[in-house]
């Protein structure tokens, strides 16, 4: 079967969907020798992210092994991660300043 999603680095708490994935999809995602088991809590569109581990509000969101922002509310494993539940650090700082 074609690869359904990819986790770039073992530090990452997000994966990227490589196809449209339905709610309830069970995934075994290999990353740097480990396998992460995730069940999607909601549908995730191609190229969008979902959490592969719980991310608490205020915790950093990681992709490519790098910080891409922080959670604006608690995110459960398998949930879609996007602008509704995370914010970039630069944008957060700018919003605070203004």
């Amino acid at each position, binding site marked *: 079967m074609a690869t359904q999603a990819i986790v770039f680095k073992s530090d990452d708490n997000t994966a990227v969907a490589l196809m449209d994935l339905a709610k309830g999809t069970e995934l075994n995602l290999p990353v740097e020798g480990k396998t992460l088991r995730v069940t999607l809590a909601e549908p995730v569109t191609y190229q969008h992210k979902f959490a592969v581990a719980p991310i608490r509000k205020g915790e950093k969101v990681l992709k490519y092994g790098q910080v*891409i922002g922080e959670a604006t509310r608690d995110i459960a494993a398998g949930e879609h991660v996007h602008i509704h539940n*995370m914010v*970039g650090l*630069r944008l957060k700082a700018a919003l605070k300043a203004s």
Partner: protein
Amino acid sequence: MEFWGFPRTDGTAGTRNLIGVIVSAACANDPGAWIADAVDDARLFTHKQVCGLIPPDKEVVERTLANLGKNPNLYGVLIVGPDCADSDPDGIAHMIAQTGKPVDVCKIHAEGGVMVAVQRGIDSVRRMASDASRIRREPCPISKLRHGVECGGSTPLSGAVTNAAQGHALDNVIRHGGNGGFSETPEVIGAEHIIAERAIDEEVKRKMLKVVRDFEQWLKSSGIDFLRANPDAQNVEDGISSIEEKALGAIHKGGTTPLTEVVDYAVIPEGRGMWFMNTPGNDMMSVTGLAAGGCNIITYSTEGASPYGFP
């Protein structure tokens, strides 16, 4: 490793063997186009700049035109312009001639008007194209490759697919003694610390961080809400959630080798390895800067299907 290139008298090598028709001021754009259209191997370089430019714009425009003319992909160059000293066709020609390549100047008033000038220009470009056709490709060392990498129309997978491929290609060119780099300063905002960490020394690191900081400051002072406009609506629809995520995708095209140099727009880098050019985020301006920087090969990845090309 070698590539099949056209050796130039200044020690560089082209991957193309074209004749550049460069207008010194925008009022010569049409005559320049008529000249370039008449010869197969001619390539036209027009722009929107006119007389009355003041520093630093004047300096940047002249440097861009002169350094485009120096690009090793051009065998020879014809400068087309009005006679007025302000646009300085002779000055631009003089700078290009330092490479030893054939350079001719067609000053429209001195030639006796537009139609006469166009005919004279066509004759000159034909002669250069004929001379150029006698040069054959020969094996050239990879050290003569200068590889510019560019991307446009980011998606959440840019960093993993197309830009990763570009970065890998750039790493290969550099590993074999060539050089190359990337540009688009505002696209790096949010990931500049990662590039800066790869700098060969403190000075290069400082300059990398400075060009990004200055650009961010300049955006702020022009009243642009850059952080709320970037990622843009299409990026967000595609799944990019923050400027950091977008920038991290973009910098993958810079590969993994150390950052050796940071240069200003359209400046020719020394070319010791991977370099960064301080340019706007607009693809057309950025690729023009890379070409003026002497890149004889430019790769461009676009998931969003930008139709832009460069001669």
